[in-house]
């Protein structure tokens, strides 16, 4: 009964705080909304980069060159081993196949090729890397592993392209993380500042509460609730904003992506999971801000 009464009193007090300074609270909520909306967008962008990487990675062909004159059965054993290891199709390309293909791809030199006494091309195995292993790290690891196998002379893959793409992704992600940290810090600071104003506006009441026997917790809880409420509201508004954004910009974005990436992958901007994360993130930011304010400005 007493706990319930205390909770009720804390809510009343919180509501009063919001009612007394709606503008100040609006600032905090807007800041939280912008921060969370941006974070949501960044999540979308990240998903986009992921799918770009994946789809471009699909064009990466890993070619494992084998020793010249390697017996066919040894080559086949290697192929099977690679197939198992990679989990995707591995195709053995014999020197004859390779020569034929070269002739097909470069008709101008076909005459030259025919005149060769010996086939100068080594046998090779071509690997189709399944989607999960198309990251630069996984590809590099695969290449290193293959290179160590007996009978393998060299491994080629679109290292540079993949590396460049992933470097771009890394920079984007790092930049995003730094920007996000800054936004986070600014948001927490602003929430703390608004709550400081809130605390200041009610300092007289706080003083009297303490003089008639209020515990520190009793005094603090309404402000912590205020921060929490701001955070939840910010999360809800950010979700609404993202919904509106994906509704209006989504079709254009999908078109653009269809041009960039074959198959037209358009990652969903707003998933139920993201809404949960935004609400949770908002609550966390609000709590951090209010705890900071309460700690700093409600010293006994």
């Amino acid at each position: 009964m007493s706990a319930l009464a205390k909770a009720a009193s804390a809510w009343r007090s919180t509501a009063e705080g919001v009612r007394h300074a709606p503008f100040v609270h609006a600032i905090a909520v807007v800041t939280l909304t912008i921060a969370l909306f941006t974070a949501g967008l960044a999540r979308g962008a990240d998903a986009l980069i992921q799918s770009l990487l994946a789809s471009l990675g699909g064009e990466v062909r890993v070619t494992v060159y084998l020793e010249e004159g390697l017996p066919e059965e040894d080559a086949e054993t290697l192929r099977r081993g690679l197939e198992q290891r990679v989990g995707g199709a591995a195709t053995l390309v014999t020197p004859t196949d390779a020569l034929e293909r070269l002739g097909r791809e470069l008709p101008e030199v076909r005459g030259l090729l025919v005149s060769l006494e010996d086939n100068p091309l080594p046998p090779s195995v071509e690997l189709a890397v399944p989607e999960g292993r198309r990251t630069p790290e996984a590809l590099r690891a695969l290449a290193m592993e293959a290179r160590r196998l007996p009978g393998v002379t060299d491994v080629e893959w679109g290292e540079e392209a993949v590396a460049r793409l992933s470097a771009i992704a890394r920079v984007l992600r790092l930049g995003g993380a730094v920007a996000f940290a800054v936004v986070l810090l600014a948001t927490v600071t602003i929430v703390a500042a608004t709550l400081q104003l809130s605390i200041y506006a009610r300092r007289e009441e706080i003083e009297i509460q303490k003089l008639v026997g209020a515990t520190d917790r009793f005094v603090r809880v309404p402000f912590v609730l205020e921060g929490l409420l701001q955070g939840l509201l910010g999360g809800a508004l950010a979700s609404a904003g993202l919904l509106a954004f994906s509704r209006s910009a989504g079709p254009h974005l999908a078109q653009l992506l269809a041009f960039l990436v074959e198959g037209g992958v358009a990652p969903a901007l707003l998933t139920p999971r993201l809404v949960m994360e935004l609400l949770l993130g908002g609550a966390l930011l609000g709590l951090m801000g209010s705890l900071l304010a309460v700690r700093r400005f409600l010293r006994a």
Partner: protein
Amino acid sequence: MIEMFHVYKAYPGDPPVLTDINLRVEKGEFLFLTGPSGAGKTTLLKLIFCAEEATRGQILVGGRNVARIRESAIPFLRRNIGVVFQDFKLLPHRTVEDNVALALDVLGVPRLQARERVRGMLKRVGLEHKADVLPLKLSGGEQQRVVLARALVNEPTLLLADEPTGNLDPVRTLEIMDLLRDVNVRGTTVLVATHDSTLLSRYQKRTVRLEAGHIVSDEDGVKAARRMVGA
């Protein structure tokens, strides 16, 4: 109820405000704390409800040593002490009822129950018809009674009243003093700080006189009153 042993209070850089205070107040007693302005009356009361910390000495309140009390225990001490502040400390934008209810709010008393007790208390101090009025719309005497209602609504065992008749005319002064006497009769220990010597002769209660931070006399009611008349 209250015991003080060699209590000193000094603010940094100033001469001591209270010097070697030794005082014993029994449960159920009514005591005047008197002396000229600046003698240290308010400071002495503040030490009792932990609004200030003694520089030296021991202070027992209800058997508890408040000179060495933990910060987190102070609220619970204060719940047993009603205080009538010299400067009232009423919230100007809250009604009389809300101001009084504050003392129950912090204890977690449910709203309805609190409202009932507040109404009862306001009736006792004769302000039931002013429950929904803002304090600034009230006269000084009425505000004083609101403060008294807030101090008493939690039924404390000890009441500290700092100049409770400060700026009141004689009639209002009598009203307040009668309320305080009534509270004392019901069993609450009452300490009244006042520089008004007419109160002392009228009420004939034990009187502790402070001058420049020293206790200069501690007399029972009759003696104190006789001296007042002689003066």
